[in-house]
């Protein structure tokens, strides 16, 4: 390994930080993906990957992606719950890679629900006609 200078050190930190950051559980935004057998069969793994990629691409540091067991809505898998400040806790259903990207872009970045996929409607005045 060549000796580092300060720029190399900073570059190394930035590369490694994202990965380390994912270990940190003290974050305000949570994406929880149902990864029971049913979820995985329905494509939860692809959704998971899509979330990870979209979060990285948007430089979001404050998001934690977790998996959980079956949420009990097997017919609507993959299901994903999103919790963040200023937004109601929301469960989305039938989340594939495209919807995952939309959730990151619209729900998290723009704070707008992806209404067509909301499973557990939080409150009528928030969904649709908002």
């Amino acid at each position, binding site marked *: 390994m060549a*000796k580092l200078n300060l720029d190399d050190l900073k570059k190394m930190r930035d590369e490694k930080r994202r990965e380390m950051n*994912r270990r940190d559980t003290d974050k305000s935004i949570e994406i929880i993906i149902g990864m029971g057998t049913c979820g995985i069969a329905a494509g939860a793994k692809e959704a998971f990957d899509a979330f990870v990629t979209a979060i990285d691409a948007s430089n979001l540091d404050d998001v934690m992606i977790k998996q959980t067991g079956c949420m009990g809505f097997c017919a609507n898998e993959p299901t994903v719950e999103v919790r963040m400040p200023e937004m109601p806790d929301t469960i989305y259903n039938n989340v594939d890679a495209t919807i995952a990207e939309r959730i990151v872009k619209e729900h998290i970045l723009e704070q707008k629900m992806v209404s067509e996929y909301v499973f557990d409607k939080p409150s009528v005045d928030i969904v649709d006609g908002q």
Partner: protein
Amino acid sequence: MAYKSFILVCAGTGCHSNMGEEIYNELVKAVEAHNISQDVQVVKTGCFGFCEQGPIVKILPEEAFYVKVTPDDAPELVAEHVVKGRQVDRLLYKEPGMEKASNKIDDMGFYQKQFRIVLRNCGFINPEDIDEYIGRNGYQSLGKVLTELSPDDVIEELKKSGLRGRGGAGFPSWMKLSFSKGVTGVDQKYVVCNADEGDPGAYMDRSTLEGDPHSIIEAMAINAYTIGADKGFIYIRAEYPLAIERLEVAMKQARDYGLLGDNILGTDFSFDIEIRLGAGAFVCGEETALISSIEGKRGVPTPRPPFPPVKGLWGKPTCVNNVETLANIPVIIEKGGDWFKKIGTEKTSGTKVFALTGKVNNSGLIEVPMGTTLREIIFDIGGGIKDGKKFKAAQTGGPSGGVITEEHLDTPIDFDNLVALGSMMGSGGLIVMDEDDCIVDVTKFYLDFSVDESCGKCSPCRIGGRKLYDILDKISKGSATAEDVDKIDAIAEAMKKASLCGLGQTTPNPVLSILHYFRDELFSHINEKVCPAGKCKDLVSFSIDAEKCIGCTLCARKCPVNCISGAKRQAHEIDQSQCVKCGECFTVCKFDAVVKA
């Protein structure tokens, strides 16, 4: 592709010696068997602090905290938790007195009131991988210091922070650096890390070195730059093999990256570190003794002044700092002195790491902001007293400290408050006692330690300590008189004034402390010849209450000297002349028939 899940396996001394390595290997095997090595990283980390529950495996991002894990559990953890997303309930930690497992670390009482600066990376990163340390902002403070800050700026930042040494005395860290920096016209200066950690029951420095060795290396380099040193020593006891091994790995990695050695980070600052092993004598932790030991001489103290920051190793300015003190420094540089100053109390900023042991439910390594009360530590973090017993006292400061009683449970802990209570912060051993502990017995233990560890160079320490021990021994045997108590005071005064080093000066502290807070208990030993806790063998006797004894014979079978007789279903009897007072009968009798008096 980035990892989605992390399995953190504790590799601290406690867990490591308890099949930690095998657990790690089994987890890696299971991850490979499921073909998910791309997604799941298995990481060996430093101590999580909760060693009593070890071996510990933590799975992120779900924050599942698995305790008492065995290698056999590994395949199930991977198959169930990681692959299927179902937590393995039987291995999850349960709070004392609670039925259900807490599924989040943040909800655990043990972690809730903690605030981690020193232990920030312990249990989080792989201590043997410098990249992980760098990913957590490691060596950035060194970079900042070398390129943006002058030595005076560093001292100024530390002054703002209010950091005081964690090795025991609480001396302002900035001042020590500025003494050394102020010496001009010498060709050589040194920085030293004091990792001797001699206090019985203390293991915070060891855990920090094992879990985050780079933070100490970084801090030493910052200090070296500040005073103008190019050489450092880590003085560590040989009984800490894992810490030594991790330090060696870390130093090698740092050298490979150009973070130790010549022209660090391409600047003209050069610095390197050597490890020096100590044989584990308590007095070698005292800075002047430590310096002689590094110089290759016997580790005995020398009179101060001259103080080491001005005249230390081989007569050159030498800044000696404790491990925990050092671990704070990179964070202070990163986040600023003002940030640090806001944590803790007015006079003692920052946090303190304690090794919480004794009669508490959750023993382990904890880090709390200064100013946290003993009640919060013992009852919230420690989960209260074991077996529903009553709290009696807490001992802080080890052999140089004293006891804190019930009435002071709500005193915010910092250097000055503890001293005002006649105790000390010391290095951070915190031993909790309950009603079954005899205060004379505990104090005898500390005195015995100090007498044993006295280097013998000065007579107040050598003779005074012995005398104090003898008096305490008399008290515990019921043969002391009130006059002996007066003697304690006289000896204590002499030792404090006339001893050469801190060991002798503080040896009487535990005795003085109980004289102050536990006079009644002391005098009941002396006057009534009674040990209220029933610990002092010469003052207790065991007998059997014939009314309550149902003649189950259990005690007779357990008694190691066979001095209990009696027929089945008949009341038993103890032959007092044979009884060795081990208390076994008292412990085993299920009918409260054995009476301790």
